[in-house]
C-alpha cells in the first residue's frame, strides 16, 4: 500500500485469497485486471470482472473477497477527503477559459458520486493502466502520483456525468424527480448485469433487483439506453469474451461457458455481427501483434 501525505492511498496487489470487512473511510475505486472478485456492499452481492470497476462511497460497510486458484491482480484507490474537496472546488469555480479547462471543466453543481459497477473505458482506462505501471516500477513521486489520481477522478466523474446526461436527454419528457429515480433503478439493473453476466439471468430477478416491474424495466431501459437489457447483457458477454480471446489461450468452448453464452455457434455468430470479424481471426490478429 502506498500512502500519500494528503491521505490518498493506492493499493496494488496480486492475491489468491482475501476476505476483509470494513467501513470505507474515503471514496474509493476498485479495478481488477484478471479473474474475479466478490464485494458485499450494503447487502448487495456484487462480482467485479476485468474491464469494469467499482466505486464505493465513504461510510459504506463493505466486504472484499477473493478466493481464486490463480492470483487476482487488482488496484484500489482511496481518495482523501481534502483531495475530493479540492476537486469539487475546482469544478465549482466559474472559469470557462480554454484550453486550461478544456476537458477539465464540468457544469458547476454539487458533486455526487455513484456507488456502482461501471465499465472501464476511455481516458479512465488509459490513466489507470499508466498508474498501474508507475506503481509496479515503485514510483514514490507524490506530485506525479497525485497528478494521476486527479485525472482518474476527473475521468471517472466525466464518465458518470456523460451517463447521467445521456439518460436525462433520453428521458427528458419525464419530471426531474422521476428521471432521477429511474436513473437510479436502471443503474441497479446495469450493475446486476455487469455482476452476473456469466450466469443465466432471469428478467424477473433483474426487475426485482432494480425495484421495477418487468414491463417498466424493459421500457425504461430501452428509452434511456436505446437498447434492451438483453442486448446490453449480450454486449457485456461479447466484451468479456473479447478480453479472454486476447489475453488467454482458453478454447472457444471454455470462453463460451465462462461468459454465460449458450453455444459456440451462437457466440461466433454474435461476435461476427458485432465486431465484423470471427473470434479466431480476432485472436490470431492479436497474437501476431503481441
Amino acid at each position, binding site marked *: 500500500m502506498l500512502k500519500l501525505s494528503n491521505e490518498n492511498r493506492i493499493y496494488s496487489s496480486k492475491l489468491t485469497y482475501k476476505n476483509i470487512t470494513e467501513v470505507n473511510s474515503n471514496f474509493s475505486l476498485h479495478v481488477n485486471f484478471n479473474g474475479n472478485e466478490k464485494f458485499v456492499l450494503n447487502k448487495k452481492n456484487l462480482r467485479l470482472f476485468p474491464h469494469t470497476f467499482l466505486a464505493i462511497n465513504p461510510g459504506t460497510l463493505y466486504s472484499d473477497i477473493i478466493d481464486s486458484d490463480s492470483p487476482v491482480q487488482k488496484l484500489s484507490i482511496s481518495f482523501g477527503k481534502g483531495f475530493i474537496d479540492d476537486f469539487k472546488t475546482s469544478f465549482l469555480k466559474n472559469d470557462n477559459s*480554454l*484550453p*486550461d479547462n*478544456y*476537458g*477539465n471543466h464540468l457544469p458547476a453543481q454539487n458533486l455526487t458520486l455513484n456507488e456502482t459497477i461501471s465499465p472501464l*473505458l*476511455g*481516458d479512465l482506462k*488509459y*490513466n489507470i493502466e*499508466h498508474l498501474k*505501471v*508507475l506503481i509496479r516500477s515503485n514510483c514514490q*513521486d507524490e*506530485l*506525479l502520483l497525485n*497528478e*494521476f489520481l486527479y*485525472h482518474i477522478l476527473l475521468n471517472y466523474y466525466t464518465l458518470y456525468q456523460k451517463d447521467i446526461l445521456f439518460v436525462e436527454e433520453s428521458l427528458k419528457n419525464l419530471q426531474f424527480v422521476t428521471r432521477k429515480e429511474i436513473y437510479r433503478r436502471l443503474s441497479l439493473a446495469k450493475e446486476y448485469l455487469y455482476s452476473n453476466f456469466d450466469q443465466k439471468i432471469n428478467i424477473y430477478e433483474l426487475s426485482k433487483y432494480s425495484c421495477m416491474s418487468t414491463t417498466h424495466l424493459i421500457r425504461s431501459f430501452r428509452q434511456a439506453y436505446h437498447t434492451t437489457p438483453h442486448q446490453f447483457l449480450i454486449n457485456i458477454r461479447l*466484451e468479456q469474451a*473479447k478480453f479472454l480471446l486476447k489475453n488467454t489461450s482458453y478454447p472457444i468452448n471454455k470462453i463460451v461457458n465462462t461468459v454465460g453464452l449458450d453455444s459456440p455457434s451462437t457466440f461466433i455468430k454474435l461476435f461476427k455481427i458485432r465486431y465484423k470479424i470471427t473470434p479466431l481471426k480476432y485472436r490470431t490478429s492479436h497474437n501476431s501483434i503481441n
Partner: protein
Amino acid sequence: MYYKNIPIWGKKLIFYLMRIKYVTIPSGNIAEEETFFVKFLGFKRKGELELWPNVSCKLLSNSDSDINIAIIPNRYTLNQKAIIIFNTENCLKQYHEITKNGVVFNHKPYYVSAGMIADFTDKEGNQFILLEERSYIED
C-alpha cells in the same frame, strides 16, 4: 512561457521518450495545401488530428515513413516560428518530468479527440506539443 534553469543532466532526460511523428505545415488554405501534397508529391490522406480544441489538422503521409505531415491552420501559428509535435507514451508523466526540469508549460495537460496533449513554448517562440495518442474505439 518557457524554461527556467534547466540543469545539464536534465536535458537528456527530457527528450528520452519522445519521438517526432508529425511535421507541421502552416497554411492559409488547408484544402489547397492538401491537394498539393496529394497530387504533386504523392502523399496519401491519413485522416484528421485534433490538436487544439475543435481545430483539426489534416494528416498526410507517404508510404515508406511513419512521420506524417500535419497541415495546420495559419492562425494558430501567428506567434510561433515552428510547431514540433512529439509523440509520447505517457503524456502526464512526460509533462511532470519536463516540468521538474524547469520548463513552464502553456497549459496543464488536456484531452482532445486524439488523446492527451500538453504544450510549451521556447524563448524563440517555437511551440512544442507532447501528444499521447489514445484509441477510444475498443479494438
